[in-house]
C-alpha cells in the first residue's frame, strides 16, 4: 500500500465533499452519460466518498475500490442506497487483489490525476479486464493549448500536496499501458474529457 497516497486521501476525506460539490453538479450530465455504458462485472476505481454512485445506472454488478479507508467510510451510506450490487473494498490500484481477467469493464472518474504511477496502474487494470474488455474514463488532464497548459503546470506543484496532478497526459498513458483507444471526447477545453479504450482481444 502506498502510504503517502493513503495519508493524502485520508486527510482529504475531511473536506472532499465540500470541494467536490460544484464539480460533481457541473459534470453530472456527462458522467451519467458515460456510466450508462456500465455492463457485466464492473470495477470502479477510486470511488472516493461515493459522489459518483448517484450517476450509476441501477441494477449493475459493481466492485468499487479506493486506497483511503476514510473516503470509503463516507461512501458507505451512498453505496447502501444504490439499487444494484455494489461492493466497496479498500485497495491500492498498484496492488490489486482480484484474479486476472475477472472484470468486463473498468470505470474511472478523476482517478488517474492522482495515481502515483499512472501507466503501471492502468496496466494493472488491463490485467483485471477480460480480453476485449472496456475501459471508461472521466478524467481531467493537462492541456496542449497555451495559456491553459502554462496555468496547469503552475498549479500542479501547488495543488499536489493535498490533491491531484493537473498536467498529466492521460490519453498517452492509456496507450502506453497497452490499450486501444476507441474514443476521446472533450468535455471542457482539452482538459476535462472522457476516454473510451479497449483491452486488446
Amino acid at each position: 500500500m502506498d502510504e503517502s497516497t493513503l495519508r493524502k486521501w485520508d486527510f482529504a476525506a475531511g473536506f472532499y465533499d465540500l470541494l467536490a460539490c460544484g464539480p460533481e453538479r457541473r459534470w453530472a450530465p456527462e458522467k451519467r452519460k458515460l456510466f450508462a455504458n456500465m455492463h457485466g462485472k464492473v470495477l470502479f476505481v477510486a470511488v472516493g466518498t461515493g459522489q459518483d454512485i448517484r450517476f450509476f445506472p441501477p441494477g449493475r454488478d459493481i466492485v468499487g475500490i479506493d486506497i483511503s479507508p476514510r473516503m470509503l467510510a463516507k461512501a458507505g451510506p451512498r453505496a447502501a442506497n444504490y439499487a444494484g450490487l455494489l461492493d466497496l473494498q479498500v485497495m491500492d490500484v498498484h496492488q490489486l487483489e482480484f484474479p486476472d481477467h475477472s472484470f468486463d469493464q473498468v470505470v474511472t472518474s478523476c482517478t488517474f490525476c492522482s495515481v502515483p504511477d499512472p501507466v503501471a496502474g492502468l496496466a494493472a487494470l488491463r490485467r483485471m479486464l477480460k480480453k476485449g474488455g472496456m475501459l471508461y474514463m472521466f478524467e481531467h488532464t493537462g492541456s496542449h493549448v497555451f495559456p491553459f497548459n502554462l496555468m496547469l503546470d503552475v498549479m500542479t506543484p501547488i495543488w499536489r500536496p493535498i490533491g491531484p496532478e493537473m498536467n498529466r497526459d492521460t490519453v498517452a498513458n492509456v496507450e502506453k499501458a497497452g490499450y486501444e483507444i476507441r474514443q476521446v471526447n472533450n468535455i471542457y477545453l482539452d482538459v476535462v474529457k472522457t476516454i473510451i479504450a479497449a483491452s486488446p482481444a
Partner: protein
Amino acid sequence: MERRFYFLAGDVLSNALVGIASAWLATVIVDPSWHMYAAMLAGMAAGMGLALALLPLFVGLFGAMEVMLPVMLTAMTAGMLFGMEGVMHWLSTPGELLGGGMIGLLVLLLTYGVDAGMRGRNA
C-alpha cells in the same frame, strides 16, 4: 459553452470578482517608484495568490477546471496590467476596479470561445 444559468452566473461572478480584487491588490502593493517590470511581476504574483486563496470557495460552488482556469488567467492578467497601472496611475480607483472586472469578463469570453471550438472534438 456552458448553458445552465447557475454555472454561467457563477463563471461571471467568480471572474469579475477576481478581476476586481486582483486589480485592487496590484495597485495597492505597487509603488509608483517601482520599475515597470517589477510592478508587473508583483501584480501578477499578488493576483494569482489572491485567486488561489479564493478558489476553494468558487470551486466548491461552481466547478473545478471550468472555474480554476479562467479565474487564474484573470488574476494573472489583471494583476499584471494593474501592477503596471500602479506605476503609471492613468486611472482613478473606480476605473481600476471596473477595468479589473472587465478583464475578468473578457478572459471568460475568450475561454468560452476556445472551449466552443474544442468541445466534443475527438482528440
